[in-house]
């Protein structure tokens, strides 16, 4: 079946690893889907889960969160704190009935340009399969009504 749906995807990434990794994807001229928009943060520790909620409320179909591998965080432990936060947030969202397959968490180092392209492409394909984000949008639509 043909699937023309172009998902909107926001990526929250840290400056030191994933942002640099995505730079390397560029310098290596590896192509990936255009659906993703990267927002730069100093560290995954800075990424507030509320931003994910807002992204979905604004109509994002998927979100990528990515930073340095464990032990590689530029600030030594921002990503360890972030990991704890995501462990709880993910389960809490699922408890409240939100499909967390729309959020992709990953560690992408500054050397993993190819991995970044792969993450984006896989995410785009998976979200395309899932279709447009519904449950969250419905909530925000009710808000407008």
């Amino acid at each position, binding site marked *: 079946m043909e699937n023309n749906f172009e998902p909107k995807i926001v990526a929250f990434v840290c400056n030191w690893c994933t942002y640099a990794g995505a730079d390397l994807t560029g310098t290596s001229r590896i192509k990936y889907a255009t659906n993703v928009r990267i927002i730069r943060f100093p560290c995954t520790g800075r990424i507030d889960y509320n931003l994910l909620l807002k992204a979905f409320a604004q109509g994002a179909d998927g979100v990528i969160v990515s930073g340095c591998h464990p032990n590689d965080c530029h600030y030594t432990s921002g990503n360890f704190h972030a990991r704890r936060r995501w462990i709880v947030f993910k389960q809490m969202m699922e408890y409240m009935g939100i499909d967390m397959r729309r959020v992709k968490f*990953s560690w992408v180092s500054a050397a993993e340009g190819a991995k970044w392209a792969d993450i984006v492409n896989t995410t785009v394909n998976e979200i395309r399969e899932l279709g447009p984000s519904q449950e969250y949008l419905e909530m925000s639509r009710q808000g407008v009504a």
Partner: protein
Amino acid sequence: MQALHQKAKELLESGKVQVIIGYGDGSGDRVRPVFISKAESASDLIWDDRCRQNLAVYLNKPEIKKLGVPAIVATPVVVKTIIQLISENQLKSSNIVVLVVDNDVVSELTDNASLEAYSAGHPVVFPPFVVKEIKDIAEMSIQQRNKYWQDELSRCFKCYACRAACPLCYCERCLTDNNQPQWVCVASHAQGNFEWHINRAMHLAGRCVECGSCTIACPVGIPIGLLTIEASRIVKQEFGQEPGLHCDADSAMSSFKVEDTETFIK
């Protein structure tokens, strides 16, 4: 009860405390919180099975703080709450007298160690109906849970009674009152309510002492305590940390272990 009255009287007369937070006669068959600052009123204090409300919520209210050093008649969950508040730098055991009653013997828990020992020896158990609710939700599919919470939360009109009742919601400016930026939509529509309740749960993750005050306070009967109970359950399951046990514990959500594990980060 005799022993409690006697103790309360002594504490007030000696000037060691200025107010006793406890339970007294309420309307009908109910008990209500009382704040006793005169020794002659000490006999107003009640202690029986009906005394369940988490009185620790009053410890951080400015009106109560103004009265002076408090003593508090504490159920096990109050002791837990106090330990949690100490670990969050909101209280010091030296500035409060904690009274626990066991078989009409009143003891004073005066330091961190005695609070911790008491808390460890008095685990909080959920009433059967809460156990059932937890089980029911656990068995739902994610779509069913979505519907369940959407239905329940649709009644929320953001009165914030849950927030006022929770002894651990002591922020002077709640996230919801923050409009630069507006993290939580003001309106009590589906999105606004969802944002409020997931934030409340995240903020209480690893901190909620499971007293149930929030659920009791909710005027439209949303079992919102289940959300914070779940958040704390996740924390315990994933990181092995429980609130209300250690006065010098680092908050589970602002600490980490290198060995923390998950399977979803690729």
